[in-house]
């Protein structure tokens, strides 16, 4: 189930929204804090299926931070499903998996960007910059 957290808006520009998809509680907490710090309104889900379900319920996000390895439905499958559903949000894959073919498969599923974990403020900023550039 998605949990909502409302961030403090730091600027006057329209609020960006983000979905954190990660089965690891430590990572979810850190990613949420990174997003909060940038004034990005965010929600969390714990696996790929919950990410798909939250979109099926009608919600949409500007940015999705998608972990690769998750139970029930992994990030590759979730990304593929979201793209098939017509979701055009910026999807940034984040993972600790280092094998080139795994990263390639993740990208081919429909990622707009890929960052190696752990996520830092500068990596997140580069994702946002890419997102603004693509608009």
């Amino acid at each position, binding site marked *: 189930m998605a949990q909502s957290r409302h961030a*403090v808006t730091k600027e006057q520009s329209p609020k960006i929204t983000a979905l954190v998809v990660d*089965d*690891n*509680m*430590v*990572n979810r*907490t*850190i990613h949420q*804090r*990174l997003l*909060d*710090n940038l004034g990005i309104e965010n929600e969390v889900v714990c696996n790929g299926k919950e990410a798909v379900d939250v979109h099926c319920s009608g919600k949409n996000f500007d940015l999705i931070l998608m972990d690769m*390895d998750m*139970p029930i439905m992994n990030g590759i499958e979730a990304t593929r499903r979201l793209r098939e559903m017509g979701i055009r949000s910026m999807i940034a894959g984040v993972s*600790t998996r280092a094998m080139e073919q795994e990263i390639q498969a993740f990208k081919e599923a429909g990622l707009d960007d890929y960052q190696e*974990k*752990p*996520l*830092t*403020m500068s990596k997140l900023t580069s994702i946002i910059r890419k997102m603004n550039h693509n608009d």
Partner: protein
Amino acid sequence: MEVGQMQRRLVDYTKSLFMEGFLDGQFSQLQQLQDESNPDFVVEVVSLFFDDSEKLLNDLAIALDQPNVDFKRVDAHVHQLKGSSSSIGAQRVKNACIAFCNFCKQHNIESCLRCLQQVKQEFYLVKNKLETLFRLEQQIVGAGGSIPVMEMGF
């Protein structure tokens, strides 16, 4: 002990944790995410890591004790632990997990059991170190001082 001395002790202790490889730059990232609106962020995340890791270590011991070890399950647990230790900057735990992952792939039970002991050892070491660090911080705050900002330059 006066506040200045406590602050110097904290700085020296924190530096030693980085120099000895217990912590890496990711821990500094967490410290930078802490501010007046989230003054306990680092303690909260690290506490989550402690609780999560103890559960994972327990699950690993159980998984490796089965008559037919499910290495996929073992690998999944180690991957989780590698992920969270990496995210909080617990470098030696992360490195021990990387070695563990390699032996999982080889389906080598004896080596996996040795790795588990190694990961446990590194985990309890860093837990002890971080609890000491947080105690030092509390002493400073309790004495009316502020936590010095440290640039670790990683």
